[in-house]
């Protein structure tokens, strides 16, 4: 090795040593260590939409849209439109943009409401599950959406049971406050993806019937709102599509707002 190339190697190594921790910190969100940047920055609003960036299972590795990960489905327009609706229809002071966090992130605990899409393709490892369990038991709320059919349900359950192996998943009762806190959601229809505008079919795979299910805590509060066989996120994303039915868009907003305000009141 010549002297010149040896110097270059040393410089590159030095840069890597300096750079890697910074990259890792940025990705993990950092721990609460006192007066770091997260403690001195001003939060943009009371509510920040957090999208869960999970690891994908074997089906997810083969999936994805246009090179995007499954958890990125509908991103960023879904939350962008939804947040504008929150600001216009409620008194919630919502940040204009969302955030993305992993299930194992410590920063999760600063955002008591999180959203996960395409959870038929998610995989929660032990740390993810433990973190999410702690998050929900402390008072956090999880809305999952856009997964369809039998095998996606099985994939969802496989990870969800790591979080709560001993809590049943039940249908949300008609009189649950989640369906009435702002809007009365007595008449519910299947909210499809935008593919409905082409196919005229509201279901995907064998997910013919929509189910609104949930996991409750020991005091009867809904912790996880499971929207199975529907695509609320797509309805938000395509709120500005003329072809997408208005009543489905409206219902999607109502669901989201109800879940949000429920989470902020229970």
């Amino acid at each position, binding site marked *: 090795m010549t002297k010149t190339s040896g110097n270059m190697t040393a410089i590159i190594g030095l840069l890597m040593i300096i750079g890697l921790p910074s990259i890792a910190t940025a990705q993990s969100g950092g721990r609460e260590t006192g007066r770091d940047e997260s403690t*001195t920055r001003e939060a943009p609003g*009371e509510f920040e939409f957090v999208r869960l960036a999970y690891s994908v299972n074997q089906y997810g590795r083969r999936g994805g849209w246009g090179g995007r990960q499954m958890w990125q489905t509908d991103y960023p327009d879904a939350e962008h439109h939804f947040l504008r609706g929150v600001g216009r229809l*409620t*008194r919630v002071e919502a940040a204009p943009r969302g955030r993305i966090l992993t299930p194992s992130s410590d920063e999760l605990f*600063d955002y008591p409401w999180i959203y996960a899409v395409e959870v038929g393709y998610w995989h929660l490892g032990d740390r993810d599950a433990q973190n999410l369990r702690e998050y929900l*038991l402390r*008072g956090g709320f999880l809305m999952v959406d856009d997964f369809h059919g039998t095998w996606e349900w099985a994939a969802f359950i496989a990870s969800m049971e790591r979080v709560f192996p001993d809590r049943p998943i039940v249908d949300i009762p008609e009189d649950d406050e989640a369906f009435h806190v*702002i809007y009365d959601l007595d008449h519910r229809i299947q909210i499809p993806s935008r593919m409905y505008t082409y196919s005229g079919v509201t279901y995907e795979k064998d997910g013919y019937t929509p189910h609104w299910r949930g996991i409750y805590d020991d005091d009867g509060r809904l912790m996880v709102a499971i929207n199975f066989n529907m695509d609320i996120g797509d309805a938000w994303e395509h709120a500005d599509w003329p072809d997408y039915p208005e009543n489905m868009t409206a219902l999607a907003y109502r669901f989201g707002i109800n879940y949000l305000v429920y989470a*902020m009141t*229970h």
Partner: protein
Amino acid sequence: MFEFLFNYSSEDYARSELVYASDWPIAVVVALVAISVAGVLVSLFRRRAYAGWLRLAAIGVLQLTMLALVVWVLLQPNLRTERLRAGENTVAFVVDNSASMAYGENGSRLSAAIGVLSTLSDDDNTSQLTLRHYEMSNSALPVLSFAETSPTGATTAIGPSVKSVLLEARVSPLAAVIVASDGADTAGGLSATDIAEIAAFGVPVHTIGVGRAVIAEDIEMTEVSLPAKVLPGSTVAARVSIRHDRQTPAQVKVYDGDDLLAVQDVALNTDAGVSTAWVDVELPTAGHRQLRFSVDAGDDDLEQRNNSRSTLVEVANQSYKVLYYEGEPRWEYKFLRRAMDQDDDIQLASLLRVSQNKFYRQGIESPQQLEAGFPSARDELFAYDALIIGSVEAASLEPAQIELIKEFVSERGGSLLMLAGPSGLGNGGWGQTAVADVLPVSLPPSTRDTFFRKRALAELTPQGGDLQMLRFAESDTDNLKRWSELPEVADYQVTGNLKPAAATLLTAQTDIGRIPLLISQPYGRGHAYVLASGGTWRWQMSMPVEDQSHEVFWRQLIRATVASAPEHVSLSASTDAGESNVHLRAEFRDEAFRPVDGIGVSAVATHADGSTWTVQLQPDTNEPGVYETEFVPDESGTWYFEAIAEREGEPVDVSRASIHFETGQAEHFNIRRNSTLLQQLSEATGGQYLEMNALDGLPDLLRYSSSGITEQEYRPIWDAPAVFLLLFMIKAGEWLLRRRWSTI
């Protein structure tokens, strides 16, 4: 030496006035001085050839000084002194014969006091005075002598006793009052009114302090303080105060009958003073609990009877109502409700504005509750014990509703807690409303954004550390540690300047410095609190689910706010400092908390052994709705009281209270000599405080008293040896200088 040089003592000079007996006109004196000065100046001028001006000036000063002294002597200076006229004055001897005067090392304090007064009465200076003798305990009793006096008084009331002596003895010219006492007043001490009334007599009161001020072998429980009424399942923090004159470990125990409820080790770390300790006592079951607090510091304690105090606590199943008015869905609202969900004694009804025109109600007892929004009627709002206002602008309410909030605190006695938020406190315009008067801070104007979504660390202040509502742990050290381990809150709000009565219980360390975080003040009959953050929810989300700090904080804070709110009907029973009687005070107000008139109020007093008495309460002319009376229990023990209000013979309301009453114990507490009180009494009356080992000046104090029938005595001082010595020294000095400078 002083008396030799100046003919009389320094005390004589201090008590006398300098006067001149010469009747020369002032013009003659001035002429004499002028001639003398002129003569000296002429003489010096004529000798200017023999010395320089400085030397001549020195000689001139000496000559003028001597001439001035001669003129002074010619003016016949005298000391004019007021002294008692022999045979025409009275002096009152007052000896404290309360039970505390039985203490002493070599004989009792009482015997020492009587000995001193006997010695004084034999002095030549007092032989021409008429002496009156009084025994003093809870009142003053004239006696012929102290031969039969014994320390049997149950209490000591120095102020009223001295007043009665002055009133009784002034039938003849009273020159002075001599009080021999340990100063251990058990009737509330000397008030400013007492002092003013005693001083108005114009008679000097000389006090002699008897007994020891420091008693290292005695530990005393001076005070126990805890709420009179608590909810079942509460853990109350009782504050105990222990007086001690040595460093020693001690242990405080709390009993409910024979049941030991709590044990707390206490380190009495200073050599002298009063140490305060907090003892947590759990009270799980309802009912009246007589708690006995005792301090144990070893078997060598001088007086065991002052080591314990009893107090009654009513553990009552009572539900409190709190109204929470919030202007926007937010996390603080959610987690506050979750924290209070577990508290069955607090009914938290909330009215949340979820959208511009929609309110969401939670915790309501019926569909009609809060159906019309925030209460507009007095009885509707006053049915709550506390009110929480969150991030909501004042403009969301009518002016009449805002005025009602102020009355809720000032008249109803409820507690108001205002939370920070983007539309809360100053941002919400509350500083420009009637509610601003209630708050412990002067809120900034709404044009200035004072709310910041930045994290801050909460810190406990010393004032906050004294309060049960901010305790996470029993010991102060552990409590501070728990507070220091709490995560940051999510936001903070600048509250403005503190008002004079405000207490800062928590502060927040922010990026702009340390600011008040939890502030409180009493207002009218109620209290107001400001919590300058809407982000305590981070404590819940940032700590393990098992950690209950967030829940404990809110439950204790809310419980503190409701516990201080009076009921519309109340009865209190308290003893005076002398523990001789019980003061009953009943207050009757209607549902709108307006004083109830036109009722008769009686109280039935029942002793624990079943005996009963009925007393009538009289209306307080200064306070509508208040009825009072004094009740003298005939025995110690627990007394239960029931006040019944009647209108036209029909009972309309009932209120209950209880008290643990013990007679004859007051004198075993506070047994140390209280020199401060005795000095205060003397100084206010122109007298003097003396200690047992410094009584030599007492006869002179009597002889030269300014009260009574006095005569003026003139004593010349021109012939004092000091005058002649000074003349000689001046002249000799002049002569020596003139010889040295060869001017002679």
